[in-house]
């Protein structure tokens, strides 16, 4: 169990390091960085590499935003395997991402309960 925590830490941290390199070295904005990482996750899943990473690192691979690209691609591929080319579309519509739905839900709740804060430093 502790080894799972350590691998989650190392793999998750490493994905963040890739993001930091995008931001610092290639001077990308956070939005560019995140979009690039999502595309990266989706490509990795195309090669069948992301699921093994999740098996290995657990939350270290499911928590970073790369897993969002992975889960969409995974859903599309799973349907495509069953129904051929049309499955690519239906598979993507089938996938529900808890990240997006929870962000929407908690975003509205957050807007409802939190007031603007005093600026501090």
């Amino acid at each position: 169990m502790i080894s799972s925590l350590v691998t989650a830490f190392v793999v998750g941290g490493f994905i963040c390091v890739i993001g930091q390199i995008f931001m610092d070295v290639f001077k990308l904005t956070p939005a560019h960085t995140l979009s690039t990482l999502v595309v990266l996750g989706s490509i990795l899943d195309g090669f069948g590499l992301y699921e093994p990473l999740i098996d290995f690192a657990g939350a270290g691979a499911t928590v970073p935003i790369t897993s969002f690209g992975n889960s969409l691609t995974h859903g599309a591929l799973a349907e495509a395997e069953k129904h051929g080319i049309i499955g690519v579309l239906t598979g993507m519509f089938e996938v529900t991402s808890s990240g997006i739905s929870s962000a929407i839900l908690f975003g509205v709740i957050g807007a409802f309960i939190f007031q603007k804060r005093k600026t501090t430093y």
Partner: protein
Amino acid sequence: MKKSIIVFLMLLLLGACSNEKEKVIFPADNSASLKPIMQKQETIHGYKSVINEENILVAININRFARFNKTKIEEKITKQIEKQFPERQVLVTGDQKIMWEVESIIDKKLKEEDLKKSIEKIKSLSKEET
């Protein structure tokens, strides 16, 4: 300071891999027949299994770095057991949750009817995706 933390973490990582293979099989009959298959697996460091007339349920602890090939290992062991027991349904999984479920069945020492129900529950659990 940083170095010592890294060393400590590495030790934890290695320590988790070096446990001896745990063998718990329940109910006891037929268990001997699983042993030779499981014993020769190099990628796992322990397993727990539950067997009744129709099903064989094996929860395995896969070594940390072999987890990349989790699906392949599961398939490999499933095939080997199926060869031995062609008349039964075999489920081999490296999932921690199933391991815990199997452990709880063993702890409770469930008998036929309840055992059957629990096994069905675990099987449906393992089929769920995302």
